[in-house]
């Protein structure tokens, strides 16, 4: 079944992407690179959750993915705000 192979390929791609983001979190020239890498990690993990839902044929995890997207967005904005102003809620 070709869909299973495509699913494996997508898992591999996003997993490798996650590893690259992790490397970028540890080795980065500046703090904005780390924020960007963390934001991309959230997006990649979200895609892995969705692909896992396709593999197990259940939509139970999609609410978790939605919550993950929201938390990732808020944390990225809060981190940027902290870098810019030294405070999150002034």
């Amino acid at each position, binding site marked *: *079944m*070709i*869909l299973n*192979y*495509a*699913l494996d*390929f*997508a898992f*591999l*791609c*996003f997993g*490798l*992407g*996650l590893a*690259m*983001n992790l*490397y*970028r979190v540890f080795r980065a*020239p*500046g*703090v*904005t*690179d780390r*924020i*960007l*890498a963390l*934001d*991309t990690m959230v*997006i*990649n993990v*979200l*895609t892995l959750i*969705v*692909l896992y*839902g*396709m593999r197990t*044929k259940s*939509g139970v995890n*999609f*609410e978790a*993915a*939605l919550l993950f*997207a*929201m938390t990732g*967005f808020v944390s*990225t*904005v809060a981190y*940027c*705000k902290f*870098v*810019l102003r030294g405070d999150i809620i002034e």
Partner: protein
Amino acid sequence: MNLMVEYILAALLVFGGIFGIVGSFGLLKLPQMLQRLHAPTKATTLGVGSALIASMAYFWFYEDRVSWHELMITLFLFLTAPITANFIAKAQLHRAINKEDLPPTGVGTQWATYDPEVQAVSPILLDDRDPG
């Protein structure tokens, strides 16, 4: 019909995977920070959108139910990706780039993030004294 749906889904998944890995690889390989900003915010978002559409179509055709979560996740990601990119670019502009090195805006005003009038909070919010 069934085989064609399967091929389309597989193509969407492969497309999404390629764009996802291109986005993460660009984050490693591009030379400047503001160039690196482009790779995850555009390529990865496209890849994720493709994978989410594939998941939605999969549940529609194989499980006979429409799952709206993917559409909500796609909408949310496509709305928030420009905002995070804007915030990160702003942080980079203020931290690592000199104001004098930026190209002119060409409209007579300076860059909005350095403009005190743009940055000022609305007067209604600043005036928080009790009117008595």
